[in-house]
């Protein structure tokens, strides 16, 4: 009469399945998040920035033709600011788009301004302008003061400012037609 049901005493009840699944699930989630973050570039890499929605920093710079131009003088017009240099490959690729946009300029329409960023030789910039027939003012920024004010770290970088003088969009990296139009749309200008 001394039967010993071993299962009753020696083997404890295993944890419920959902409890056992928690650690591997947490580990898998962590690996997933890490992998996603590593493999996908940040969303605001090419657009956005701390200046969006704020008043565009004022500047008065001299164009390559020696004419002083201030942002304030363009108040009431949407402005496209393009930081560039002749040595920059992507600037070269987007230049035809700016020429095309330049042909649409009217007296009260969008104003395009180029600002030289770390241009090593001014003559190269002049050759660039001639080569791409850019019909808008290109300004010198000798101390990179304006560049710093706009948070420019590399070029090309394009700032889209609306009629009220508020920065609505920034694009870093060579523009494509779609990206240029996306910026123009934000400042109420018809795309090209």
């Amino acid at each position, binding site marked *: 009469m001394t039967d010993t049901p071993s299962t009753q005493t020696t083997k*404890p009840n295993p944890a419920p399945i959902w409890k056992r699944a928690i650690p591997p699930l947490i580990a898998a989630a962590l690996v997933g998040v890490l992998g996603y973050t590593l493999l996908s570039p940040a969303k605001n890499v090419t657009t956005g*920035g701390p200046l969006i929605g704020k008043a565009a920093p004022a500047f008065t710079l001299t164009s390559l033709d020696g004419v002083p131009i201030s942002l304030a003088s363009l108040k009431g017009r949407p402005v496209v600011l393009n930081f560039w240099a002749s040595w920059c490959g*992507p600037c070269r690729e987007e230049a035809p788009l700016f020429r095309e946009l330049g042909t649409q300029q009217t007296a009260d329409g969008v104003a395009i301004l180029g600002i030289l960023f770390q241009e090593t030789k001014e003559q190269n910039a002049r050759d660039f302008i001639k080569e791409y027939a850019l019909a808008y003012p290109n300004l010198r920024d*000798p101390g*990179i003061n304006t560049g710093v004010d706009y948070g420019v770290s*590399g070029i*090309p970088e394009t700032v889209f400012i609306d009629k009220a003088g508020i920065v609505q969009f920034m694009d870093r990296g060579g523009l494509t037609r779609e990206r240029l139009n996306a910026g123009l749309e934000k400042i109420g200008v018809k795309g090209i």
Partner: protein
Amino acid sequence: MTGRMGIEVLAPSLLAGEGRGGGAVQQRTRPSRTLRLLPAALCLLLSFAHAAAPTTPPATLAPAQEQRAVAIQRNLRCPLCDTGESIAESRSDISIKMRSSVREQIVDGRSDSEIYTFFSQRYGNFVLLDPPKTGRNLLLWSAPLLALAGGGAVLWAFLRRKGTAAPASAAQDAEPYDSYLDQVRRDTGGGPG
């Protein structure tokens, strides 16, 4: 973000004939290529950065101010360098400009936090090598502590459960099931069960 900018500015000639259209985007999404180009880019940078640097006369600072300037410069990231180096170490033009801007602002009597704000308003918190411990950043700073506390709590609970479970099962093991003893216990109204 810095992949494109750093390389382009440091080594323009390397990129002169780079791909069409979204060349910059392609570069950003191919870090291995960026990394391969980096040493060459740095060499190029060292060779011409100084020649191209804007020559702003450095503001003269008192020794204490100079120390402040250096401390601030060490806490600001060079916005176009891939390596995350500070503007105090970087030799790129933009870092030279930012260094002189820090000195100018110190001369103007601005406080450290005002100077940090000046740069973060332009470049975002990205430029701050010692981000402020406020807002969303609090999560970043506190996450390791929270994780440590959570892990500690789990470990404590686990050890405690094990500690109490072990004697109970040991007692059970020490007394094998005996139906006769069980019967006696039931009859006398005592014992487990």
